[in-house]
């Protein structure tokens, strides 16, 4: 598989810019950070729900990518490779956090609150906005309660819009296992939406 960016990057004309050999990648690491940092941060934030922790994971992710840039074999996309690093870091972070019982996540807002503002701009009726907020909140809660692996594949599929094969590479699972986790996650989420409806 060729080193290539996602369709979003292709659309922005940047794909060609990062479809380069590893040496060029090392030189242009800042471009790489600029392109992929929002995605890694978003996934880390959705997984950990802690801004500081997500920032730390994002920094560690690019630090490790920088240190391991010569070992990048180009057998998957740069995005997949970075997400693979991020998934491992997040898993480690969650395991460490189990022992940090005194630490409290510093969250100031949930996506539900932000969705409210975003939807207000679309001039929808207050009832429609409330309904959407309720559904987003239900999925957010359901995702929080999912087991770690199910949550990871759920977020990779439905927030990062990765396909099953990419998720399998990122998580190191078989495609069938990814599918099983996704089915279970979807069922839990759907049940949660049903409870709130």
């Amino acid at each position, binding site marked *: 598989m060729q080193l290539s960016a996602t369709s979003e990057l292709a659309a922005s004309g940047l794909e060609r810019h990062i479809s380069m050999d590893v040496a060029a990648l090392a030189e242009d690491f*800042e471009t790489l950070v600029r392109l992929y940092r929002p995605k890694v941060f978003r996934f880390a934030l959705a997984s950990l729900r802690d801004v500081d922790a997500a920032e730390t994971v994002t920094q560690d992710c690019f630090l490790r990518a920088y240190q391991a840039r010569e070992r990048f074999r180009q057998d998957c996309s740069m995005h997949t490779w970075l997400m693979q690093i991020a998934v491992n870091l997040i898993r480690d972070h969650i395991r*460490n956090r189990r022992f*940090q019982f005194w630490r409290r996540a510093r969250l100031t807002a949930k996506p539900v609150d932000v*969705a409210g503002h*975003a939807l207000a701009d679309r001039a929808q009726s207050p009832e429609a906005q409330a309904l959407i907020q309720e559904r*987003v909140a239900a999925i*957010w809660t359901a995702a929080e309660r999912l087991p770690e692996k199910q949550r990871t594949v759920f977020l990779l599929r439905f927030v990062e819009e990765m396909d*099953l094969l990419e998720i399998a590479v990122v998580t190191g699972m078989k495609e069938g296992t990814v599918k099983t986790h996704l089915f279970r996650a979807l069922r839990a989420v759907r049940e949660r*939406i049903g409870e709130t409806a």
Partner: protein
Amino acid sequence: MIAHLSAEQLSKYILGQPSALVARHVQHCPACRAELIQFRDALGEFRGAVRAWSEDRADKYQAGNYQEDTALASPAAVSGPWLGWASHQLPWALLIAVVCIIASFVFPRHPGENAPASDAVLLNQVDAQVSRTAPSSMEPLMRLVVEKQ
């Protein structure tokens, strides 16, 4: 013909892997179609909300932590791992220190408490040795001499 979609069939459809039978059913069943659209919309709204939230958080974080951001731009300069380790281990170290301090009050050690008694015994032994007029091996003979006198 199937009655309505099961949870698994619905999930397969959402993941873009419906069987021909399921796809045909969705075409002809308004209830299942409505449920699918509603679920798909909800997932889309969730995606939009998380993305907006993430951008919002990132903007606010970077506005307040510009130094960290510039450090990321040059990864070689980042000295994160040790700091990360320290921040994780420091609370444990403090906790252990506090436990040790409390333990020192709860289980006090008084090494000098029995010292005077043992010192007195030792001094008596030394006095006894020093005050002997003959070595210990000669003591029985000395006793005989004393008895004769």
